[in-house]
């Protein structure tokens, strides 16, 4: 009976709406609650902000963002953009931010590479490789990152010789407990030609690769992509370099009274932080990769073997592409973790955003609310941007259902 009546009732309900009070209409009631929530949250934010300003004025604590252009007066060891003692707090902020982005982006690349290697190794049939990877993951994953950072910093420093006993390596490289010193490239005026040649070579390489793939799909014939690619990317710029009269020289570091002068310096603080972050995050990425690969049904591998594919190509062409769908979302959160964990830099003296801005600048200006708000906003922006890129990548790799 009821199943016969039901469509009828639904039909009448859709045609003419029954007159009910708005608090009985779930849709209108929903709007009301949303509006109420909006007002309450808005009021809370307003009350908190005005209360904070009120308290700060009462205590005679400086407020506002006027400090941004004041002279900083302190120094920062590692700076990728020009900065001096007489620069502003705002400039110090940018120096810190660039340092954070540097360690985070390099860290993400290396952690991904190491993580994939360990993750695949954990699934190896070789007993030794398999167990080593398992031990790595369990040890690294189950000890605090801060401890590991301090370990790496002290391990890096203790293992390296003093300045006077610097390890001189061929090509003008020096290694000591102040860091790694490398020759600094000095680009001549006509060096831009070489850059253009390199860009053109890269474009040519991609175009050739596309053409070769299409040809293989069409005819089954393979082309020497690697050989032609190397020629385009290396030989062409080299030819241009010599043709332009070798417009590149190096500022070779040499031993000064205390320290090494000239060249590019890679600070031990940076190395320690990078090592710590990469090794720690790689353990998590390895587990993500292992889970992703195991999520691909065994039948896929067996089918690939049945078609005569060797284990290498099976992993490359069959398993990994399918595993990526499972891997990417948790991989994204590992990237976000790495970026946020880089704020532990403060423990090893690496001048990242938190160390420079939330440390020294906050202390010199005393404006905790403003400085912390800016720092949080920056981390939020970095994280959202990373998520955006990874979500875009994920949507490209996701299974397209037909």
């Amino acid at each position, binding site marked *: 009976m009821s199943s016969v009546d039901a469509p009828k009732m639904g039909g009448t309900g859709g045609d003419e709406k029954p007159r009910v009070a708005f608090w009985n209409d779930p849709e209108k009631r929903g709007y009301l609650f949303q509006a109420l929530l909006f007002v309450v949250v808005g009021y809370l934010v307003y009350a*908190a*902000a005005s*209360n*904070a300003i009120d*308290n*700060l004025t*009462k*205590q*005679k*604590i*400086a407020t506002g963002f006027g400090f941004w252009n004041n002279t900083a*007066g*302190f*120094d*920062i*060891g590692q700076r990728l953009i020009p900065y001096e*003692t*007489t620069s502003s707090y705002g400039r110090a902020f940018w120096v810190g931010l660039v340092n954070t982005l540097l360690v985070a982006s390099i860290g993400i690349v290396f952690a991904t590479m190491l993580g994939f290697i360990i993750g695949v190794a954990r699934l190896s049939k070789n007993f030794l490789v398999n167990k080593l990877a398992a031990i790595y993951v369990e040890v690294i994953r189950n000890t605090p990152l*801060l401890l590991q950072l301090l370990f790496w910093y*002290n391990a890096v*420093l*203790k293992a390296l010789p*003093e300045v006077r006993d610097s390890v001189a390596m061929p090509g003008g490289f020096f290694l000591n*407990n*102040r860091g790694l010193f490398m020759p600094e490239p000095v680009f001549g005026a006509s060096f831009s030609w070489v850059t253009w040649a390199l860009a053109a070579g890269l474009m040519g390489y991609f175009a050739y690769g596309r053409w070769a793939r299409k040809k293989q799909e069409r005819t089954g014939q393979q082309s020497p992509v690697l050989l032609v690619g190397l020629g385009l990317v290396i030989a062409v710029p080299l030819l241009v370099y010599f043709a332009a009269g070798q417009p590149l020289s190096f500022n070779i570091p040499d031993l*000064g*009274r*205390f*320290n090494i*002068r000239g060249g590019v310096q890679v600070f*031990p*603080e940076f190395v320690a932080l990078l090592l710590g972050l990469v090794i720690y995050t790689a353990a998590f990425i390895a587990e993500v990769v292992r889970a992703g690969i195991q999520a691909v049904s065994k039948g896929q591998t067996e089918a690939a073997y049945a078609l005569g594919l060797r284990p290498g190509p099976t992993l490359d062409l069959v398993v990994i592409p399918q595993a990526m769908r499972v891997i990417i979302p948790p991989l994204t959160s590992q990237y976000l973790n790495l970026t946020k964990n880089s*704020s*532990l830099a*403060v*423990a*090893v*003296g690496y*001048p990242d955003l*938190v*160390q420079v801005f*939330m*440390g*020294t600048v*906050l*202390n*010199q*200006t*005393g404006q*905790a*609310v403003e400085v*912390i*708000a800016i720092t949080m906003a920056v981390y939020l922006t970095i994280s959202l941007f990373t998520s955006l890129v990874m979500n875009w990548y994920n949507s490209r790799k996701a299974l397209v259902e037909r």
Partner: protein
Amino acid sequence: MKKVLMSVAVGAAFVMAAGSASAQTLNQVKSRGVLQCGSNTGLAGFGQPDAQGNWTGLDVDYCRAIAAAIFNDATKVKFVPLSAKDRFTALQSGEVDVLVRNTTWTMSRDTQLGLEFGPVNYYDGQGFMVRKKLKIASAMELSGASVCTQQGTTTELNLADFFRANKLKYEVVAFASSDETIKAYDAGRCDVFTTDASGLYAERLKLTAPDDHIVLPEIISKEPLGAAWRHGDNQWGDIVKWTHYAMVTAEELGVTKANVDEMLKSTNPDVKRLLGTEGKFGEAIGLTNDWAYRIIKHVGNYGESFDRNVGAGSRLKIARGVNALWSKGGLQYAPPIR
């Protein structure tokens, strides 16, 4: 991470707390039954806990003296160890009642942080420590050196000023805590370790081979180290100020921990006013009239505290120098109690 959390908590405290800091501190301390004193995380001679968790030091004695004046009990102090970069936020947000943590009194800190600075319990200046084997005799030879320092300190700023003014090149490595700083110097990360001269002698004791290091003769700054409290609570400020002045006055008058009971019978009007046998000076600052007697009974006078913690009777063996009484050529001078 703990520091980050704390900074955030402090920020939240500003946003949420409704109270203000006017004339409340003494009542809060009394009702809590314990004084919360912001102190160093561990600086020999100034503020450092031993293996049993007993705090000792010149700054620690200052806090104990305040507690003695209020509670007649020098043990009613909770020491809150603070890093250089967290100390002001902890005081601003009310986590500590008073900050006695070898903190330099500067104009910007006094006027922009919502704080008041009080009597200077140690006149200091910034110095440099280097390894003997570098064969350096003066700070002017430090061009090209790398320098380890603690962030969030006046040290960090003086350092930049010194090298800029003398047109010397250097590389700074800044750490959040003094322990990390001295460890990095010990590990050879830096040629130079810099902090207040008193701190150099104290931190040198932590090095693996203290005798391999020397302190350079240059003092590059004025570092008046003193107590700080929240702006606006004048009664509390009076208590903090006069606690130090009472200790200095006691030294001047020869009143010591040992003879303070005898001194109660003294006929010297200065001593009588100090110990509360004449006048009502204690009540005027919200305490009892025997406030200074309590301080001297439990902690001693300034000279005793100095000797015991940083002077001849301590491991640091720092000479009184500018910290001697004004009558002996130093800068320690207390306004009269009358």
